[in-house]
């Protein structure tokens, strides 16, 4: 039962990745992103012409983005297992996991607000739209921090049977480095580092997708490692340490 629940949590993360893409891309139509160089009127036009689909897509995201949480809970538990107790690394992982769904929820609130009143002054709609993109694309710090902690943890794991393979360390570092350019969107209105650019949006989005899938697979393996450990402990009649 235990193993099933934990594996379900890992796959729920992948399912939610798919859900996020469907909601933002196909329902709301916010991917591919609009250009930051549009005037206030052009931006407001998008939100009034596609108001309903944007509001439906983002409303669904507001309801469902919390389904990322079990995935993150499992991730934090596995970091906790490597660390061996509730230390700084696992606690930081927990705290950053709390912020993860909010990254989607808070930006969705601004996007919904932008589309909510098509009759209002375009300048206001543009400001709300900016806030949507600034949070959705630009808020990469928590994610990067989370991934670096994970990489570091796996790197220093000295247990006999480690939960994650060594290459997972470098995979996470790769993801962290490619996520960084997202933070530059506040400085550009055109080009590859604008919020609709190749370096700030498309590459980080692709890598995020790859990371969610690979990490889910690695988490299911880590659950198996843990289950085998429990079984061996039970066979040797050892006390199980409080998890």
């Amino acid at each position: 039962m235990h193993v099933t629940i934990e594996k379900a949590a890992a796959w729920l993360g992948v399912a939610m990745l798919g859900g996020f893409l469907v909601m933002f891309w196909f329902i709301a139509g916010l991917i591919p992103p609009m250009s930051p160089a549009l005037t206030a009127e052009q931006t407001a036009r998008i939100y009034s012409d596609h108001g309903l689909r944007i509001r439906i897509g983002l409303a669904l995201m507001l309801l469902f983005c919390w389904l990322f949480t079990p995935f993150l809970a499992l991730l934090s538990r596995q970091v906790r297992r490597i660390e061996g107790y509730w230390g700084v690394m696992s606690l930081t992982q927990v705290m950053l996991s709390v912020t993860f769904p909010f990254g989607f929820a808070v930006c969705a609130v601004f996007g919904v607000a932008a589309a909510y009143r098509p009759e209002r002054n375009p300048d206001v709609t543009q400001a709300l739209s900016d806030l949507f993109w600034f949070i959705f694309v630009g808020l990469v710090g928590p994610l990067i921090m989370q991934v670096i902690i994970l990489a570091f943890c796996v790197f220093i794991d000295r247990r006999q049977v480690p939960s994650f393979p060594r290459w997972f360390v470098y995979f996470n570092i790769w993801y962290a480095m490619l996520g960084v350019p997202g933070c530059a969107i506040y400085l550009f209105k055109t080009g590859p580092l604008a919020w609709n650019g190749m370096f700030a949006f498309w590459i980080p989005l692709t890598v995020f997708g790859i990371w969610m899938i690979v990490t889910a697979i690695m988490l299911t393996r880590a659950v198996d490692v843990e289950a085998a450990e429990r079984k061996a402990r039970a066979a040797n009649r050892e006390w199980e340490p409080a998890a």
Partner: protein
Amino acid sequence: MIRPAPHVPGEPGVWIFLFGDMVVFGVFFATFMYQRAQAPELFDASRHTLNIAIGLTNTLVLLTSSLLVVTAVRAIRLSQRGAAQLMLAGALVCGLIFIGLKAVEYTGKVTAGHVPTQNNFYLYFFILTGLHLFHVLIGVGVLILLMTQARRRNLTATRMAVVEGGGCFWHLVDLLWIVLFALLYLVS
């Protein structure tokens, strides 16, 4: 005759990161080439405003540092700790010279009015060299890590692999710069 088992430097996993990074930089380079094809005259005219002397010096500095890192990793393997630390310190100094020259170059460009918003060439110039500079900064951190490892008396197989992986990362930084130098400063 028995062939020695093939040796891959570093942990195999480090190559996921190195190849992954190279693929993404490949995409960056392709984007730049595409943009250049849109406005070949503008890109060529802007290219001539770059300071080749600084670019070339930086290339030589990084090549020297790569050579020092190779020698240092070799020295670590032979447990010549003093030599290894000296080489790594030299590589570190090279890294810092590179960063210093980049700062001089950026300042010169900005005071001459060449800012990212001027045209697409300068937009890509600053972004690509900036992303590379970010790699150099991380590389400096890696070199410092290698120096702490060079001080150890005996390295386990895992630690030795980490040292080699760190060395490979520095070579990647060097390699990316060589491509970048050719692409931005030389190709007409």
